[in-house]
């Protein structure tokens, strides 16, 4: 049932078993999974069923380093940011859960094996079909195309599977709206989460609407699922009792913000003498049975362990014929390189060469200096705006270059050539920096309250009935898009609620 918060009488108090704040990928998944749990669920969404400017403006904030599009990178209406999601899905790799101490990357208090059953269910929810991600044989069987036989053990073919993309607010609207146990409050903004005097339990959620209505929800259990920036903002702004912010006794809330580092345009070029040697599914996104897939290249886990490297996903696309536009300086030698490669090939064909572009997403190092804080300015509801301070470091730059050099080794040994196009300067200039609109790490998960905001169950350390869902709990994030893992973790949390494990 949908309820417009703007019509709720002033001062109303609503009792509920479970309050879920935020109706995005995590919030809707949780509500949907709990729809038959015989507990009253209240899903609270800031926006309506469609986007509107005034609500979207509540996302505006400040940038403390790289000028970051805080309002444009997220959507604030039913379905959340899945309303403009690209649909790229891949699970994190085992190494992503292990941590790499030399880089300051903490281990998760979970393993990939722990998440595997939830990844399988996430695959259904994200409408990906039944294929395995990391087993290339079914893909080869279905397409007749073998993965690239790149020599060495540094770079391997992996697969993304694309969601249609699932617009959670549309696809699962009926499932949650028609469930007798679920009430969905639209146009309802949680402006403060209020705990008891000891800040050990959440008692009330203060709700405000842009029309001026104010009411309260009193949950037995509360799940914050508003995204990687907003989760931290709301905890920090909920400071009536715990003055540094709710759950922020160890000054961790908002810190360790992570974003995948990309670069505007391509980071490398690959020259091949034969345009047919890179299979179609590396360059395009074909439908295979019920799945839409794309092959990418990633460093192997062993290589990353050996070198203390950062993960990267490398996608390839056809750029142009050698010697064709653009006639820029870096491209000057392209025809010569292709001719050289052709000279090296036995059994020459009449096929033409090709220059491919390489785009990337790089795993970031979680840094306490990259963080969400509260700005001085306030939004239309009186809540302090968020201020995001984020800048990739030399570590990421070096890791990107090392990974591209590994790509060059692999392609070179196979008969291609790679031109690395990332500078090795010490600092990133702003125009060199790209990002994936992935907001992660600001309430990270750790068994140790001094290292993380939530425990392995997503429970805020020290607050018995407050849980956090979404990518803000990621202690590290690998190089792949977060939504698939967000959904898996949400399913896991719902299961734990249903079994009574979370109270």
């Amino acid at each position: 049932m949908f309820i417009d918060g703007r019509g709720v009488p002033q001062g109303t108090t609503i009792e509920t078993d479970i309050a879920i704040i935020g109706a995005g990928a995590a919030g809707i998944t949780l509500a949907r999974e709990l729809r038959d749990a015989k507990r009253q669920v209240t899903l609270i969404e800031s926006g309506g069923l469609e986007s509107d400017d005034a609500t979207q403006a509540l996302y505006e904030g400040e940038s403390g380093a790289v000028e970051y599009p805080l309002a444009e990178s997220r959507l604030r209406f039913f379905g959340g940011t899945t309303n403009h999601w690209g649909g790229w899905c891949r699970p994190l790799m085992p190494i992503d859960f292990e941590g790499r101490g030399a880089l300051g990357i903490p281990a998760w208090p979970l393993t990939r094996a722990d998440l595997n059953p939830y990844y399988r269910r996430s695959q259904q929810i994200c409408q990906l079909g039944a294929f395995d991600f990391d087993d290339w044989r079914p893909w080869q069987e279905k397409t007749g195309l073998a993965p690239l036989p790149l020599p060495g053990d540094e770079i391997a073919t992996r697969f993304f599977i694309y969601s249609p993309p699932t617009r959670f607010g549309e696809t699962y609207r009926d499932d949650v709206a028609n469930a007798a146990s679920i009430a969905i409050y639209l146009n309802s903004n949680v402006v403060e989460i209020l705990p008891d005097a000891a800040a050990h339990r959440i008692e009330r959620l203060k709700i405000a609407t842009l029309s001026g209505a104010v009411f309260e929800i009193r949950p037995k259990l509360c799940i914050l699922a508003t995204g990687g920036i907003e989760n931290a903002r709301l905890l920090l702004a909920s400071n009536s009792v715990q003055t540094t912010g709710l759950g922020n006794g160890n000054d961790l809330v908002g810190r360790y913000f992570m974003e995948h580092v990309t670069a505007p345009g391509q980071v490398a070029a690959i020259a091949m003498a034969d345009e047919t040697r890179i299979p179609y599914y590396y360059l395009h996104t074909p439908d295979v049975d019920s799945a839409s897939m794309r092959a990418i290249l990633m460093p192997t886990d062993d290589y990353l362990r050996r070198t203390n490297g950062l993960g990267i996903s490398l996608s390839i696309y056809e750029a142009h014929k050698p010697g064709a536009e653009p006639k820029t300086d870096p491209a000057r030698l392209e025809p010569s390189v292709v001719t050289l490669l052709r000279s090296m090939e036995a059994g020459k064909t009449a096929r033409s060469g090709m220059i491919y572009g390489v785009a990337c997403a790089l795993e970031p190092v979680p840094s306490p200096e990259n963080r969400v804080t509260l700005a001085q300015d306030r939004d239309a509801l009186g809540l302090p705006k968020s201020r995001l301070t984020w800048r990739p470091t030399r570590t990421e730059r070096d890791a990107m270059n090392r990974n591209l050099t590994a790509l060059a080794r692999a392609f070179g040994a196979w008969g291609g050539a790679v031109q690395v196009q990332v500078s090795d300067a010490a600092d990133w200039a702003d125009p060199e920096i790209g990002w994936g609109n992935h907001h992660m790490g600001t309430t990270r998960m750790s068994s140790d309250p001094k290292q993380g905001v939530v425990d392995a169950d997503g429970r805020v350390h020290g607050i018995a009935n407050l849980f956090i869902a979404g990518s803000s709990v990621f202690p590290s994030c690998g190089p792949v898009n977060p939504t698939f893992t967000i959904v898996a973790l949400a399913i896991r949390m719902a299961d734990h609620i249903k079994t009574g494990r979370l109270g």
Partner: protein
Amino acid sequence: MTLSRRHLLTGIALLSLWSRGLHASEADAADALLALLDDRATAAGLGSSWVQKDHLQPDAILEQLQVRLRQQGWAGEVNPDHLRSLMGAAVAEDFRSGAIVTIEGWQVARTQAELCALAYFASQGIL
């Protein structure tokens, strides 16, 4: 101090340079290698910037190239298919061992770069 094989070969190459001009067998080898190139002029273009940047000498380059091929089992044959296959193996070995040369960002095997350098020297009439 031990004298490595590389030092020894470089010394031989330098002696060869000092003697001015290639022996007939070396000239044959150079010709056979250059014959692998589809387009000597473009290869020479690639080789020129590397040669000039690292102040490379023709005899040393030819000698190093021959050493790499010998390491792949070359015994001086000039059969192009066989030579090309050995070049491929040498290139793969370069990438495995990190013998990589960067030319305007392009990461090529040292063997490939040496072949291009050879083409450059030939284009200059130095060989």
